[in-house]
Each structure stands twice: as structure tokens, then as C-alpha cells.
């Protein structure tokens, strides 16, 4: 075969090769001039040059100019990862007047200079990789991106502050929003907080207006007590199934008068109130808290006598003059179509039982931070009275930072918010009890607007700051003043000696971790997790709210621990990214789909069950397989399986890959 004429049609293949120094990132380890010199000797290569920063405007212009000057019809760039700059160079190729898919990229930075030390071997590897690309690009074809319309609606999963803010932003932009929340009310963790740092705004005062706005917004469909069970389709066109759990209340009839709660046969609560961190009891028919949205009661099937098959006069049902209570209610499923998805499923507080050292669950007056949030809150279980389990007021409180965080035995990461919320709780506890407050910390981290100033304020308020992670909490006194109290044993590392500090109350600043079901959610939405289990953004700096799945965005603590300002900012960003997608109105589909060459297809049906997207069907008339390009996502599994080689995947054609393999191994 004549090499000069391989390719699309009969024209001569003219390849331009460009290798990037990336400053010293590549050139420091790989002899780029040698690679350029070598590639120049390969067949069909018309021009081969190196450049300091190929991705710069000047670098791209060089490619465009060379395409015109040397009448190039193929371009190969050896630089960084295609996941970073393939788009850039495809665009440059297009500007040179040729189809962007006549371009191929060689990764010699992430897979080369950054991971190897031996200059000769790294250079050899770069030459091999370049040769493989040169061989493959000859077989490239002109391809067109297909456009698909985008549905003008969005699914927001999770109704914490992230989901609320994202939903409102989208809804205010005129888009239809489906907000799905697992609990009976939206509000998330923020609704449980008393005040917010560093401004000490009342959390409820700033959150509940947003919650009611969600509840009444004409563009928002709010499904609480519901879960997304299935999502199919692709960017711009997702088909979603939502399971609506029975709350045993007809939502359209309930007006939230709460008469049913008053008339429940249980005169006081019979089950732990999750919203109050189990510090109080609630009835089986309940509303999580006064400002819950939607303002609908729910009946807890685990606590309700009737739903457990017991005998009950069902006084709640008779009390409701609108007959809204329906014990026969079953779960239902809603099917919706959306253009984008914002995942805002939040976090789980670290379980303090996992650090037995601190005596949580052993000593009655060891609390988690979230429990203390409820204790200091005037709508909390004690009406805002900070009292110990025996009813007395603490005279001395120890706040232990970094519980579960920065710890190889539990979670390695810094949870980012604990320092600041500990300071806030220190302030509130001081205000409520006038106790001596001891903060036991490793480092105080206050990177935020007004945060360091808040720390200073706390210092001036007379709080104690002891730099040392607590080693022991004991009830064995060695001097009389320790009698009957918990004694915190800690090295005051700035003073350089060990101290024993008797306290009446211990607060554990528990860190943030991924929810237990994070990995289930991740699979459902086809996104990735970082090693610790938080959802992975597409790029840590440049695409912080996108995921590897187009049209699925992240907001809030499901992506990593963050405070309320950052969460709201990220939720806004996720909404903005979704809006871009919706407002452009169409998505360009990558052309790497598969197609069947009819004359080779024997109609054996091997491929049919392989496609997870049901993109392949059989034309019974012709007896051949047909691939629907709209449904095909371009994985290539059917291509590899076709016994007669009738299926081709654009950009990953057999002849392209074989050419690449063989040339990669020339020097082997």
C-alpha cells in the first residue's frame, strides 16, 4: 500500500507534528528537540517542530499557520493530557481549515516527563508514543458533532442549603426545577444549627425564608420524603425515576394545622427525635420542626402503633377534619425528564463512638457539636438552656477539636469547618452558661472572611485555647477538686507540659465525612468518588462543580467539607453551569459513536445484548444490526465483540488502533 495516499480519499497525507516544552515541565525530562528531529524522519510528516508553550495563543497560531503554509491535513501534538487540552488543539486545527478530528494528541507530560526520571528512557517513550500517533492519525476521518436539544428543566438532589440555593437560582432564571429531598422536610444540617459563624446570624432566620420560597415557587416541584431511584439517558436528556415514600398523609389535603399531632394517643413523644439529635422525644405523627417545608406532617411507620399492626383508636385520623390521614398510602413513583442534574446530597457527621478515647456514649456529658447546636438553640430540646444530663449548668466546658479528622485511624482530611464552629459554640456556651471554656486544638484554621477576627474576639472573651489533642478523659480523680467531674488530660504543647483540667461538659468537634450511601448515589448518577469517598469534581481547580458525566453537577458537602458561604457559592456555580447547558439549548455529542457496515453484518445478534443503552436493534427486513447514534454513548464494547468486524467506532477504528499498537512497538 502506498503510504502517501492512505487516509480519507486519495489525497496525500501531510502531517504536522508539534511538541511542547511546557516550560521545563516536559523539556526538563524529555529531549523535545530530539523527539522533533526523530518524528521529522517518519513517513508523511511534513513539518515537525517544538515550542515553549504550544497551548498559548502564539503556539496555537503556529499550528494554524503551519497548516496553511505546508498544506497539512493531519495534526499531532505531543504535550499534556488530552483530557486537558484536546479541545484547545482541535479548535486550532479547525481554525487552520481542516476538520478537527484530523487531530491526535500524545500525552508526554502526565504519562511522561512527570512520572519518569531517566531522560533517555523518557525521551524514547515519547518518540514511541509520537510514532504511534503519527501512524494512527493517517487513518482519521472527518467527523461531525451531532447536536441534540436540551430539556429545559433540572433535577436537584438534596434539599440542604446547597440544594435550596441551586434550586432557587435555577427557578428564578425561569427553569423548571424538581427538588428531591429524602427527609420529610428540606433544610438539611443547616436547619439544625443555632447560629452561623462568624457573624452569628441566626441560622433559622436566614434559612427559613429561602425554604418557604422553595415551597411556594411556581417553578419548583418539591418532593420531600422521596428518593431518586433511577436515572437514564444522557446530558440534556435525562430520564429520572423518583420514589415517593408514603408519609401516610394526603399532601394535597393537609394544611399543616398539626391537630393530628395534638390528638395522637401518645400524649408525649415515644421515639427519639432525630432533628434534636435524639436529645428529646417526638410522637409517631410529627413535623420535624416548626418551620418545616413542606409544612406537612408525616407518620413514622416504625413508631406508630396502628402501622405496626397494634390496636389504636387512630385519634389522629379522626382529629383531621380534612380526612388527610391515609394509613393505606403506598409508595409511588414519578417519572420526569430533565436536562441537567445537580447532586447536593450533603455529608454525615463523624460518629464520635469511633474515638472511644473521648468517652462518647460512656460519660453522659460528652456531646457532639451537633447535639450542642440543638442544646443552645432556643427551639431545641431544652428551649436553649444548656444543662447537663443531671439538670445542672456546666461550670467548665472542654471543646475537643479535630474529632475524627486529620487522623489515619478514621478520616485523614481536615474537615475545614470544625475550628470555626467550635469557636462559635465556645462563644454561645459562654453566653449561655458563663462557664470556663477550654478549646483543645491542634491548629486553629481560620481561612475565611472575618474568621481570624472572630478567633481574636473569642480570645478576648476570655476563652482558653490549649494547643494539644486530648489524650484521655477520665473519671478517676487525683486531687479533691477533680472529684465527680470529667478530667481532661492533655499536653499544653505551647507550654510544654501535661495538664489535667476538670470539666463538666465535653463537646466533640466531629468532622464531616461522606454519607454512608455516597457510593450508591455515585453509581446511580455515574460519577466518581475521590479516595475518601466524597464525589469527585472534573478538575480540582478549573471544573470544581462539574463531574466526569456531562450534565451532572455537584454542590455542597457531598463534594468535600465546606462551610455555608462556600456551599452557597458552589451551589450558585452549579446552577450557573446548568443554566449554560440549558440556555445554549443543544448539546454537541462527541462523534465517537459506533456504526454498522451492513454488507459485513451477518445478523448474528451478538452485539444486541451487549449494549447497556439499548442502542442496538435489528433491522428484521435486512437482517442486520442497526445502531441508533442518539443512544450510542461510544464505549466500543460492541465493536470489540462483533465476530465479523462489521461494527466501527469513530475515532477508535480497528485500523487506527492496530496502526497505533504496531508503531508503538517498532523498537521492541
Amino acid at each position, binding site marked *: 500500500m502506498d503510504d502517501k495516499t492512505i487516509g480519507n480519499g486519495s489525497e496525500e497525507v501531510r502531517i504536522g507534528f508539534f511538541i511542547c516544552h511546557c516550560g521545563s515541565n516536559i523539556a526538563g525530562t524529555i529531549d523535545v528537540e530530539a523527539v522533533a528531529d526523530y518524528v521529522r524522519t517518519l513517513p508523511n510528516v511534513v513539518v515537525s517542530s517544538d515550542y515553549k508553550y504550544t497551548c498559548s495563543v502564539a503556539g496555537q497560531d503556529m499550528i494554524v499557520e503551519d497548516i496553511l503554509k505546508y498544506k497539512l491535513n493531519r495534526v499531532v501534538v505531543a504535550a499534556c493530557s488530552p483530557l486537558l487540552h484536546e479541545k484547545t488543539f482541535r479548535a486550532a486545527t479547525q481554525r487552520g481549515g481542516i476538520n478537527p478530528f484530523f487531530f491526535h494528541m500524545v500525552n508526554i507530560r502526565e504519562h511522561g516527563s512527570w512520572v519518569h526520571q531517566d531522560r533517555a528512557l523518557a525521551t524514547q517513550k515519547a518518540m514511541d508514543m509520537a510514532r504511534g500517533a503519527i501512524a494512527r492519525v493517517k487513518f482519521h476521518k472527518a467527523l461531525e458533532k451531532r447536536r441534540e436539544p436540551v430539556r429545559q428543566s433540572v433535577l436537584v438532589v438534596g434539599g440542604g442549603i446547597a440544594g435550596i440555593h441551586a434550586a432557587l437560582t435555577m427557578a428564578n432564571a425561569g427553569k423548571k426545577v424538581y427538588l428531591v429531598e429524602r427527609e420529610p422536610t428540606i433544610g438539611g444540617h443547616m436547619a439544625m444549627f443555632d447560629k452561623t459563624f462568624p457573624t452569628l446570624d441566626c441560622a433559622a432566620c436566614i434559612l427559613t425564608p429561602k425554604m418557604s420560597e422553595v415551597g411556594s415557587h411556581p417553578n419548583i416541584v418539591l418532593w420531600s420524603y422521596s428518593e431518586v431511584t433511577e436515572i437514564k439517558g444522557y446530558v440534556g436528556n435525562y430520564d429520572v425515576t423518583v420514589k415517593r415514600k408514603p408519609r401516610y398523609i394526603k399532601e394535597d389535603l393537609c394544611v399543616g394545622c398539626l391537630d393530628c399531632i395534638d390528638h395522637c394517643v401518645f400524649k408525649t413523644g415515644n421515639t427519639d427525635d432525630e432533628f434534636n439529635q435524639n436529645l428529646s422525644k417526638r410522637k409517631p405523627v410529627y413535623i420535624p420542626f416548626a418551620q418545616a417545608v413542606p409544612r406537612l406532617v408525616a407518620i413514622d411507620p416504625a413508631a406508630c402503633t396502628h402501622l405496626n399492626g397494634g390496636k389504636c383508636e387512630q385519634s389522629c385520623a379522626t382529629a383531621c377534619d380534612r380526612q388527610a390521614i391515609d394509613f393505606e398510602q403506598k409508595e409511588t413513583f414519578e417519572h420526569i425528564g430533565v436536562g441537567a442534574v445537580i447532586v447536593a446530597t450533603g455529608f454525615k457527621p463523624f460518629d464520635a463512638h469511633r474515638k472511644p478515647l473521648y468517652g462518647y456514649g460512656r460519660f453522659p456529658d460528652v456531646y457532639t457539636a451537633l447535639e450542642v447546636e440543638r442544646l443552645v438553640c432556643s427551639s431545641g430540646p431544652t428551649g436553649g438552656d444548656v444543662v447537663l444530663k443531671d439538670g445542672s449548668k456546666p461550670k467548665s466546658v472542654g471543646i475537643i477539636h479535630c474529632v475524627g479528622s486529620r487522623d489515619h485511624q478514621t478520616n485523614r482530611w481536615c474537615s475545614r469547618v470544625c475550628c470555626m464552629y467550635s469557636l462559635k459554640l465556645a462563644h454561645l456556651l459562654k453566653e449561655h452558661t458563663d462557664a470556663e471554656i477550654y478549646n483543645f486544638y491542634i491548629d486553629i484554621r481560620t481561612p475565611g472572611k472575618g474568621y481570624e477576627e472572630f478567633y481574636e474576639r473569642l480570645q478576648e472573651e476570655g476563652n482558653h485555647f490549649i494547643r494539644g489533642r486530648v*489524650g484521655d478523659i477520665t473519671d478517676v480523680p487525683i486531687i479533691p477538686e477533680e472529684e465527680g467531674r470529667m478530667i481532661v488530660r492533655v499536653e499544653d*504543647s505551647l507550654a*510544654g*507540659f*501535661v495538664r489535667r483540667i476538670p470539666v463538666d461538659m465535653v463537646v466533640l468537634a466531629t468532622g464531616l465525612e461522606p454519607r454512608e450511601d455516597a457510593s450508591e448515589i455515585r453509581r446511580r448518577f455515574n460519577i466518581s468518588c475521590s479516595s475518601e469517598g466524597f464525589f469527585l469534581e472534573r478538575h480540582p481547580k478549573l471544573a470544581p462543580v462539574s463531574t466526569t458525566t456531562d450534565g451532572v453537577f455537584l454542590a455542597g458537602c457531598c463534594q468535600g467539607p465546606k462551610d455555608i458561604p462556600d456551599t452557597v457559592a458552589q451551589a450558585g456555580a452549579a446552577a450557573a453551569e446548568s443554566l449554560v447547558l440549558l440556555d445554549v439549548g443543544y448539546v454537541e455529542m462527541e462523534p465517537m459513536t459506533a456504526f454498522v457496515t451492513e454488507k459485513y453484518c451477518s445478523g448474528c445478534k451478538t452485539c444486541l445484548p451487549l449494549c447497556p443503552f439499548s442502542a442496538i436493534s435489528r433491522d428484521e427486513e435486512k437482517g442486520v444490526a442497526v445502531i441508533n447514534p442518539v443512544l450510542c454513548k461510544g464505549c466500543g464494547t460492541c465493536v470489540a465483540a462483533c465476530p465479523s468486524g462489521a461494527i466501527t467506532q469513530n475515532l477508535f477504528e480497528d485500523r487506527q488502533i492496530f496502526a497505533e499498537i504496531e508503531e508503538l512497538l517498532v523498537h521492541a
Partner: protein
Amino acid sequence: MSSIQRQIRFESDRDPGFADEIRAMPGCELIDRCIQCATCSGVCPVSTYMELTPRRIIELTRNGFKQDVLNANTIWICTSCYECQVECPKEIGITDVMYALKTKAIQAGVEPKHLGPPVLFKEFYNMVRKTGRMSETQLAVRSFIKSNPMQMWGMKWLGLRLLKTGRFSVKLEHMPKPSVLHTALDHADRIDGRRAK
């Protein structure tokens, strides 16, 4: 004596090779991970008696302040109960570091000559190397003679109590065949973290 002394360390006071020697000993490889959180000192049952808390030992060791570390009473007070090691959030083998430092101090000959623990360790070592077993009474007597002979008087009641309950034995215990152990131990490497030349 009462003149005011300058309290400062110069770079020349450091022995960077020392930190490497310790890092190379079993269990000591993670000392650079320490964030000085002080959990070790907080949980250590005897840190209250130490001149330098375990946290400071780690910091001084990794910075090569050999003299400060080897001369502190800390390493001899450590009872090797491993509380620090299992609670360390960075999973540093703190107890192993203490062992490593003890061997270094004895190698360098800077261990306190009349402090109970180092005297006990050396007596124990010599006895076990010779007989293969440890004989409690003999060991106690030998250690007391070298560290604090007067203490033996205080122990006389204890001795009597043990005698009365049949737990006192002055016999020197030994393995049936200690010679095999002598040869075996002579052929073990000295694991002291020093790079082979």
C-alpha cells in the same frame, strides 16, 4: 553558675544523620509525619514525669538534636505501654522510637549510670544473653546494687511477703541448653539504623 546562659540551637548543633539512623529502625519510619498534636503526651501515663514529653522527643529527633534527646530522662521513664502508638492519629511508632533511642543512648554510653531503668535493662540483657532466661530475684538484687542499694531495705517486707507465699526464688534460672542461644544471638545483625558502608 548563676550567669545567664544563651538558650539557642545553631544548625551546627544538629546531627542530621541521627534522624536518618532512627528512621531506618523498625517502626520508626513515619516520624516526619508528626503534626505535633501532642496526643502521645496527653495519653502517656508517665509523661508527667518526663523532662521532655514524647511529642518533643519526636520533634527533636527528626531535627537531629541528638544530645537533647539522648540526655533526657524521657526514654528511661517510658514503660512501653504503647498507648501513644495506638492513639497517634498519624500512626507513628512512638514506642518504637523510644526503644530506638534507648539503644542509641546505651551505644553512645550516655545513659544515666545509676538510674533504675537503664541499670535494669543492661542487667536483664546480660543475664538473658548468658542464661537465656530471666531470674526475677537475682535481677532485682543486681539492679538495686548498681542503682540504689538503699532501696533494698525498703524491699525487705516485699521479699518477706513473697517468701511467705512461695513466690520467692533466689535460684538462677537458665535454659537447658543456653549455648545454642549464645551462638544464635552472636549471629544476629545489630539493627541500629546505621547505613552499611
